[in-house]
């Protein structure tokens, strides 16, 4: 058995800069060994430990969908030591990947339901994975209406613009994009995510709301969803925390007795309310 | 100035009594909100810092030869409390032997404590017993009781009793300490139990260092490696140090990562070396770092060297007066350049 601490090696196939200031990039990685690709069997919402050998590791949500074969994608913001070093990488460089880790979005439970995907800013990566997965022809029939509400500070920060444009043209998905303040050339919605959710006003009937974003956005959106009569069980969130091992051994990502890395990162709001812990 | 050794225990009892009285009146008259002092430890060879807010608890305050923690460590950042949802800085009375008071004076100089909020309850100290040495030397016998009388430390266990000479079993730094009581300092409001001392400079020949300093670099490296080889990097020395108040220690900095966090010898030495560097002109020689070390590493060599450097180069001793600028906060045109490469 291979040690869970040893990363699988991948090479960078492409790098796409996602925003104007160039501090968020999407990396497409291809496994060096074909067997590794099969071993890396994931569902949307899971994450992986990305490591730059010689620099360190950091946990990053998987942005690609399992239906996209041949490569995996990670959207990485330049923040700390490792992510800064990754941002200096070029196509062809070697990156280690350990995963898939975490529980991911509960796909089986989502089946047969209306899905409302609410994202804010840079936290959209695992949501992209989910939407992509649901829209795949093999899976689309398993889900009912799909609504995507996605907010950003300004339009240059919107991730995955190609995908979003494609989705906007599609019939079987509603996409509502919003930016915080009006901007020249923007004809979409303007305002924070929470009021837009209120305006879109999704019905809680047979629905699940998936919320991912900065803490303040989650907070306000929760209030709105509460107002719209969503039950805590119907709201799913993905948490993040400082992690090292990603497999529940190094100890730091606990909220109460739960480890974000193995019991999470996806929790329903009902679960979160029951958890006593620091986060 | 060697004081005649009286009965240490009797002296301590006397001081303890007076200290409680002073503390009680400070609390009753609301001159302070909280008293930081020492309480009896639950295990022998220890004492426990205690925060007293109620007058009823005053009798938990103790004073003996095991009050090794430097209490000045607890006032940076200042103690606060929420009153009606508003953060209020507390007025603190601190039981202070010489080194605690020196630390407070130096912290005031570094603008880390507000002298207005601090009341020094000055205590004449007759040294702290070297608990780690006793533990180590008694080997695997469990000490259950320790007392000091006249010039003896009496250590008792299940089926043994040892009498140790008091002067020998003091903390290494207490042996060379010249400032046992708080130095008088005009702008820190003091209450002194017992006599206070007026001291503006300390004379010392640092003869205890000469043996080490005469070694070759290789020998020195060997001694230091040997000394620090047990270090587990628990950072108890850093945490117990009143001068280590940085929000983010250089050890914890990760942009950039200055050096490794591993327990390799080179990393351990760098940690202690750089910590020492930061202590120059600031170390008050309380010896708390050595007393708290779970592995019993005695850092006195380094502490003494720091004292020597600043004394000899800048004629400065940390924490004696609020009027003198600490050497690392100022500079002079005519500072010595003997360490530099000249044209000669």
């Amino acid at each position, binding site marked *: 058995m291979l040690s869970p601490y040893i990363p699988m090696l991948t090479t960078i196939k492409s790098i796409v800069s996602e925003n104007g200031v160039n501090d968020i990039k999407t990396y497409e990685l291809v496994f060096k060994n074909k067997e590794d690709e099969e071993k890396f069997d994931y569902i949307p919402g899971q994450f992986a430990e990305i490591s730059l050998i010689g620099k360190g590791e950091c946990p990053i949500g998987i942005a690609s969908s399992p239906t996209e074969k041949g490569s995996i994608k990670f959207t990485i913001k330049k923040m700390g030591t490792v992510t800064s070093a990754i941002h200096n990488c070029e196509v062809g460089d070697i990156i280690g990947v350990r995963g898939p880790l975490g529980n991911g979005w509960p796909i089986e439970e989502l089946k047969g339901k209306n899905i409302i995907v609410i994202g804010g800013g840079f936290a959209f990566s695992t949501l992209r994975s989910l939407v992509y997965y649901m829209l795949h022809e093999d899976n689309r029939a398993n889900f009912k209406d799909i609504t995507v509400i996605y907010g950003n500070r300004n339009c240059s920060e919107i991730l995955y613009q190609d995908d979003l444009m494609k989705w906007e043209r599609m019939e079987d998905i509603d996409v509502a994009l919003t930016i915080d303040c009006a901007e020249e050339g923007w004809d979409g919605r303007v305002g924070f995510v929470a009021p837009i959710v209120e305006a879109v006003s999704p019905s809680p009937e047979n629905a699940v709301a998936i919320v991912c974003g900065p803490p303040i956005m989650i907070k306000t959106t929760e209030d709105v969803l509460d107002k719209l009569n969503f039950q805590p069980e119907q709201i799913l969130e993905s948490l993040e925390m400082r992690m090292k091992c990603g497999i529940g*051994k190094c*100890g730091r990502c606990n909220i109460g007795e739960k480890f974000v890395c193995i019991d999470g990162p996806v929790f329903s709001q009902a679960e979160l309310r029951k958890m*006593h812990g620091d986060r | 100035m060697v004081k005649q050794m009286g009965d240490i225990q009797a002296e301590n009892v006397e001081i303890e009594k007076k200290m409680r009285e002073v503390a009680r009146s400070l609390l009753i008259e609301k001159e302070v909100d909280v008293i930081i002092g020492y309480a009896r430890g639950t*295990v022998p060879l220890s004492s426990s810092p205690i925060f007293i807010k109620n007058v009823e608890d005053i009798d938990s305050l103790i004073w003996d030869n095991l009050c090794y923690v430097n209490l000045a460590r607890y006032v940076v950042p200042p103690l606060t409390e929420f009153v009606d949802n508003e953060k209020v800085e507390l007025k603190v009375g601190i039981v202070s032997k010489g080194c605690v008071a020196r630390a407070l004076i130096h912290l005031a100089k570094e603008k880390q404590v507000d002298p207005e909020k601090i009341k020094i309850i000055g205590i004449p100290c007759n040294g702290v017993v070297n608990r780690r040495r006793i533990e180590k030397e008694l080997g695997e016998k469990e000490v259950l009781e320790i007392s000091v009388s006249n010039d003896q430390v009496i250590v008792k266990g299940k089926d043994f009793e040892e009498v140790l000479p008091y002067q020998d079993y003091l903390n290494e730094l207490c042996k060379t300490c010249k400032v046992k009581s708080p130095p008088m300092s005009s702008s820190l409001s003091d209450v002194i139990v017992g006599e206070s001392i007026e001291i503006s400079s300390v004379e010392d020949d640092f003869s205890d260092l000469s043996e080490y300093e005469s070694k070759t670099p290789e020998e020195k490296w060997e001694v230091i490696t040997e000394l620090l080889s047990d270090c587990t990097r628990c950072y*108890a020395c850093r945490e117990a140090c009143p001068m280590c108040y940085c929000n983010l220690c250089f050890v914890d900095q990760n942009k950039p990562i200055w050096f490794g966090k591993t327990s390799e010898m080179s990393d351990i030495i760098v940690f202690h070396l750089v910590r020492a560097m930061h202590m120059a002109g600031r170390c008050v020689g309380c010896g708390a770092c050595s007393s708290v070390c*779970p592995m019993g590493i005695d850092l006195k060599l380094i502490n003494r060297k720091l004292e020597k450097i600043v004394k000899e180069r800048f004629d400065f001793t940390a924490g004696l007066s609020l009027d003198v600028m600490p050497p690392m906060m100022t500079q002079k045109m005519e500072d010595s350049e003997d360490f530099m490469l000249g044209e000669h």
Partner: protein
Amino acid sequence: MKEKILKKDQVKQLHEDLSRYYSFYAPTKVKGNIVFKKITNPEDIELEYLNSKIPPKEILFPRMETLFSYKIDEKNIEIEPRTDLEEKILIFGVRPCDAYSFSLLETFFNFGQFKDDLFMKKKENTVVIGLACNTPRATCFCTSLDYNGHPHRKDDVDIFLTDLGENYLVNPISETGKAIIDKLAWLSEANNDDLQKAEELSKKAESLISTKLDLQHTAEILDPSFNHPLWKEVSENCLGCGTCTFLCPTCTCFDVVEDVDHYNNRGKRVRIWDTCQFCLYTLETSGHNPRNTKIERCRNRVLHKFNYYPKNYDLIGCVGCGRCIHLCPVNNDLREIIKKINAIKNENKKEEVVVA
């Protein structure tokens, strides 16, 4: 009779015989501290000891352990997994509380979908020879723990020794232990007197443990006490050092760092002990820290052992060795903390908010 007698001067012989097959670890004195080290000279073995300062977990979960090493050659990277895990380890003279800590660590490292292969492999290859504790410290409280802790507990070892004064009574426990004893044909037979003496010592040792803690309900009391003012109180004089956790036989938290050798273009990824008492432990890159003050950090340590462990693994994460009690620089006594927690039971159970 399966029990044997090992004369004290035969320890040398035992070392000689066993170190041929095993890396022989035993307590030894290094600069006044008892620690477990690999023994090459049997004279160094120190068996008359209370308990080691650093727990023997250090052998299986070292302060610094390589996860894997690598070579960097321009753009190519070659990963080399650990190859030294097959080393046969023998740990001699382990106190029963520390021997139990091995079982406890095994439960933890083997839990869940991902197993810690480094620890598990080493544990598999390890033989533990326990040594009865005839002289418990005043701070010991193993008998209060849920694992039937006892200074003469034999369950977690392969061979159990009892110090009878002149000799050690050798008691093979596991199959491995029996096999080893069979090989040591020179051991003399024990008689009933020896067994009886061991029995007496066991009773005596038990009576010497003066600390009795009620840990029956601690886990459930802790459940609603997350925001209790108690935590501020118990953390008030905490320094925030890592002594209690580094020297705890059950603490397992680690940090993963890179150790690069620039000289030779190689490096290794290592794990080093880390502790929940440090600010960096949970500090996120964004600057947010879920456990920002020592109140939360002290709380995490206690809850982890006395609430999260029972919930996750159905056992208390403490062996009762008392190291954190007598080594804490400011004497922040765990026993007092437990007593304070137990006192909550009688309080009104309404939740109070900590004023931080």
